[in-house]
């Protein structure tokens, strides 16, 4: 039965102020049922305050074969990392 159902990617906002984060996927026949399934599978232990589901088919992914061209050039550009700033102690989630 699962095989015939579309796949949905699930995003959970763990608390207000934070962004939705990808947590996994569910099979469901429609968007409403995907939200229910995501609620039952991923938020049973108070993991979230908000859910998004997105049809997996709607996601365009980068090609692993392109990863050298896409990502490796950033490796030696350490000056792009904001490591030279002091982050105040009371700033969380950075």
């Amino acid at each position: 039965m699962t095989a015939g159902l579309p796949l949905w990617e699930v995003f959970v906002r763990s608390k207000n102020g934070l962004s939705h984060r990808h947590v996994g996927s569910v099979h469901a026949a429609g968007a409403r049922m995907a939200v229910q399934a995501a609620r039952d599978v991923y938020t049973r232990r108070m993991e979230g305050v908000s859910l998004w589901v997105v049809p997996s088919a709607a996601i365009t992914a980068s090609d692993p074969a392109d990863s050298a061209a896409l990502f490796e050039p950033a490796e030696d550009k350490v000056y792009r990392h904001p490591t030279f700033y002091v982050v105040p102690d009371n700033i969380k989630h950075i």
Partner: protein
Amino acid sequence: MRYDLAVQLGDDALILGHRLSEWCGHAPTLEIDLALANIGLDLLGQAQFFLALAGGSEGQGRDADTLAYRRTEDEFRNCLLVEQPNGDFARTIARQFLFSAWQELQFRALAAGSDKAIAEIAEKAVKEVTYHASFAADWVIRLGDGTAESHKRMAEGLDWCWRFTDELFSGAGAALRPEWDARVNAVLAEAGLHTPKPVRGITGGREGRHSEHLGHSLAEMQYLQRAFPDAVW
């Protein structure tokens, strides 16, 4: 008075929760497996509160566990609907749909009622039950408005369960019937299903006259406490 009501509410939740636990590991998909187990656990939690309240108001030292594990089936006061076997997924959904729609209405009424202890439990539980009712209604629509096979099974599941619905509205419960009828009929219409024809309802659960299915269910549920009284782990 409070004991009678609390035991009825607790037994409904306990027995249906146990029935749903039988799906664990057997549901059509992982998502449904977790959903049914979640609903079962919600019901088990409600049973714990209601039976603890019943034991306390009875004042003979029986706690929730004693009431759950040490009564015989003629002492149970659950409605007949919840003890019916799971059948296929469609029948389980039919049972859940009819029961949760009623339970939601009942808990809303109890939450505004005069018995504060019962009202507190009902108010907490109604959030859970609202979800159960909408989950089951969505599946009724999905199966009823699905393939020829799913439509047939959903109709059969409703037919099977329908004769046990009158019992929900016996006595003072009759006041909930019009709203329940309206809700059920609206979902069935959306699902492309006919409301089952009126049948002579089977009752007796509230007086302790149960179908043969409850005894088998209790035998499994109570086995450990019967074989090893007061066992803990």
